[in-house]
């Protein structure tokens, strides 16, 4: 496959940082705000942002269904933070009318790590990315509360208040999601991982 073209859903959020990270990971990156722009990309990143706003705009401007169709057809998608929420089949603490793209058989709790005062940076051991932890930036971040049998857990953090751990990165087929924002750190390994997913999906 030639260099993959990866879109970043540009309705709202930290689009620019994802475009930079994808370019650094040797993909061709471009913004997607319209259905016809979606048709031109091999894969999609759903950035961090405000998931309620993103979901509303995706419905309003006719992107929700086309993205769902592409997901069903196997298009690789990577979602960070709000993007993780968008990829969840089920969400908790969302708005009652909040729709998602879905695709990953998981339940995600919105703002699970707390408000901005609780936002944090932490090293994250990420399955498949070697010994060195990924630099995770968690901002009013969600976590994955439950996953179905087909979902691979790639990273967990120890819970602050007990022996449990919190799932913060998952993969199901061609779909990847993280609670945190690798695009804010200059550590592009998660984006490289996604570009490899896109390349093998295209083969």
């Amino acid at each position, binding site marked *: 496959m030639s260099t993959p073209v990866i879109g970043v859903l540009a*309705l709202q959020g930290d689009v620019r940082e994802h475009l930079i990270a994808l370019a650094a990971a040797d993909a061709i990156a471009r913004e997607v705000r319209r259905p016809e722009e979606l048709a031109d990309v091999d894969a999609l990143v759903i950035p961090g942002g405000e998931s*309620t706003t993103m979901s509303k705009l995706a419905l309003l401007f006719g992107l929700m269904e086309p993205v769902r169709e592409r997901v069903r057809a196997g298009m690789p998608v990577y979602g960070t933070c709000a993007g993780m929420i968008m990829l969840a089949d089920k969400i908790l603490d969302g708005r009652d009318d909040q729709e998602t793209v879905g695709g990953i058989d998981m339940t995600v709790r919105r703002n699970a790590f707390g408000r901005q005062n609780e936002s944090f940076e*932490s090293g994250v051991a990420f399955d498949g990315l070697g010994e060195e932890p990924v630099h995770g930036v968690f901002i009013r971040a969600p976590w994955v509360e439950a996953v179905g049998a087909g979902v691979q857990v790639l990273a967990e953090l120890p819970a602050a208040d007990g022996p449990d751990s919190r799932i913060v990165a998952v993969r199901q087929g061609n779909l990847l999601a993280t609670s945190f924002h690798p695009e804010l750190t200059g550590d592009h390994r998660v984006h490289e991982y996604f570009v490899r997913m896109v390349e093998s999906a295209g083969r």
Partner: protein
Amino acid sequence: MSTTPITADQPQIGTARVKRGMAEQLKGGVIMDVVNAEQAKIAEDAGAVAVMALERVPADIRKDGGVARMSDPNMIEEIIAAVSIPVMAKSRIGHFVEAQILQSLGVDYIDESEVLTPADEVNHSDKFAFTTPFVCGATNLGEALRRIAEGAAMIRSKGEAGTGNVVEAVRHLRQIKNEIARLRGYDNNELYAAAKELRAPYELVKEVAELGKLPVVLFSAGGVATPADAALMRQLGAEGVFVGSGIFKSGDPAKRAAAIVKATTFYDDPKIIADASRNLGEAMVGINCDTLPESERYANRGW
């Protein structure tokens, strides 16, 4: 930015990356002034990325006069409870105790705002002393960099709040963008003098010259009243907009709020902005800024 190694055993809160990163998530969005839980819900329904909780919108502060202060904690808590999106609130310039209170209430961002009556005519608050990030207003690049040097994690143009007149927001945003563009053309020798002229730390001036943008997110505020105003500020380089009195001082707040959200995302698509501008009812009346006496210009507050 912190260079401390990041490990799973010691998560760090309140870092520059976490504070600035929060503002990155708001980009392309609209932050709306609200004075009660009901308005906060209307804003959230319309697609706001955050709300600014305050007792009176700037247009009413102008009308009522007197000293404008931080809002009642009860009212801020009601708004926090009513919506799931981030909640910001304003402290007076230099009133670090109001800021401490806002942090203890759990607001997501503190606006050290010239819309309230300044509490200190020499010093702004030390924003590094807080876990909660701060947004501050600026009329030019030097002012923006002085606020960032004090720890601000987001900058907004000041504009002239409560007027429904976008002219000052345009002036301030153009000023900031022009000064950044000028720095881009300077060689290293010239940056020292530029820093002196801007009255800003050399390191920040050098960083801006290299990046070609502020090291933090830049929004526009002060006088945005229509979808076209919001799109104008975006086309001039604002990464998002604050809308104060413009929404809830208009005829149909819910409709106008949703329209401004659409125009902010599709700021470069006149057809969508035209559709968003249809049948919005009455806009806020507005004030001509050149008839405002100097003493009533909020943008002159702060330095």
